[in-house]
């Protein structure tokens, strides 16, 4: 079941964390929660959730997560690889 409402809440939380300069832990938790939801990740990411986003939601998720990874970097190569796939997916949505 697609939970767009949950994604919107996480996105707003992430925006707030960035703008208000919340502690790094809170920022990271917000970002990773959104990231995992969009990747629909267990061991194998499916990106089905990301594919169902509206254009507006897609570009906003792209912007916030891109800012996050630009500042904090990736935990490992797996996370980097997932982000590359997810960002391609998001970009495809709002560029179409």
């Amino acid at each position, binding site marked *: 079941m697609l939970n767009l409402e949950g994604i919107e809440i996480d996105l707003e939380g992430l925006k707030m964390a960035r703008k208000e300069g919340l502690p790094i832990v809170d920022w990271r938790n917000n970002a990773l929660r959104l990231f995992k939801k969009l990747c629909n990740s267990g061991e194998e990411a499916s990106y*089905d959730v990301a594919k169902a986003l*509206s254009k507006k939601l897609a*570009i906003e998720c792209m912007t916030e997560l891109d800012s996050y990874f630009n500042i904090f970097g990736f935990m490992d190569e797996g996370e980097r690889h997932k982000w590359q796939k997810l960002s391609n997916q998001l970009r495809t*949505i709002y560029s179409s």
Partner: protein
Amino acid sequence: MAKAVKSTQDDLLFIKVKAIMVTGDNDSRKGNIHNIIVFPNNQEHMVIPSRFFNSLRSTIERVMSSNNIHDQKFTIDTALKDEDSLCDDLSSLGLSIAIGIEACLNDWKEAWENVWEEWCFTGEVKDSQGEIGAIGGAREKLESATDDETINYIMIPFQNRQEIINWIDKRKDINYEVNTSRNISVKDTGNSPSFFSRIWSLSTRNTFMWIALILWFLSITYTSTRHIFWENIQSFSNGNSQLTINLPIKNPERVKQRLLKNGFPEDRIKNIPFSSLTKTNQIGKALITNRNGAIEFEIINSQDWTLISSYICGGYIALFAFILVVLALRANKGNTKPSTGNINYDSLLLTNRNKEIMFIDNIKQAEAIVEHKIH
């Protein structure tokens, strides 16, 4: 399961504009066409990837200033990936960003949606007046644009014109005609903001200006209170047995009335030398006290800081208003739309490629040409 994204009217908010960047080193340099996205977000300027934000910050601010827009914000996706290594900076994206922002703000975004693939831009926005300056790698950029079959119109800075003509002359496979001073008629849409809305935009453009504006209103409140209601306020604080007056006295009759109202004996009031107090050189405050019928007169402060403060506030009121008016007038000057029939531009028609290369030197000219062509 994934579901297809339905297209909505909101899709028109995602303006696509083609730009050209150069990648590679020396002999391997080549131009790449990027479909950049301009999206109004109403919160803050953002760039994707965000590591390029600092490179584009001044370009975005110049575009906004040249359009005299300060309250709208945009997300700009450069279509670059983090791993992309460019051999030129991002400044040449300026013209594409300017066209994207103009499409967002104008009523031609629907028409633009149908033709954007035919257009390609490159040019650096040099200043807040929207001047377009020369770019590096013009030949590589033009080569990639002329090879792209979807592109019919290529817009390039006028300063690169001779370089481009020299390059095309060497290309035996391209035939061209030169059109000098093409003239298009442009209707004045009358969208330029009014003088007062420009003043409001300027005075609320950032936190510093907001603080200055609030101080300006507080200064007006304080200065008018100090000069109109001050005597009444002093009376409230002193009670009935005392009255504070400002020296020199401007209106003796009014002071007499206030003394009578506060219960000072009339026969004693007559003994106060009001005529001298109106001509005295003494500046400050005097305290008149009624001690059981005996009147005491005491100068309590030779420096009236409330008065000095009101002069300072008055100066600030005048200075802030003057600066705002001057800035608004200057913004109007820079924002003047070219009037009907005044847009000239040089172009090259690539006759065997079905493409037109247009040379421009400012944002307004570029926008007018695009608007003219798509309608």
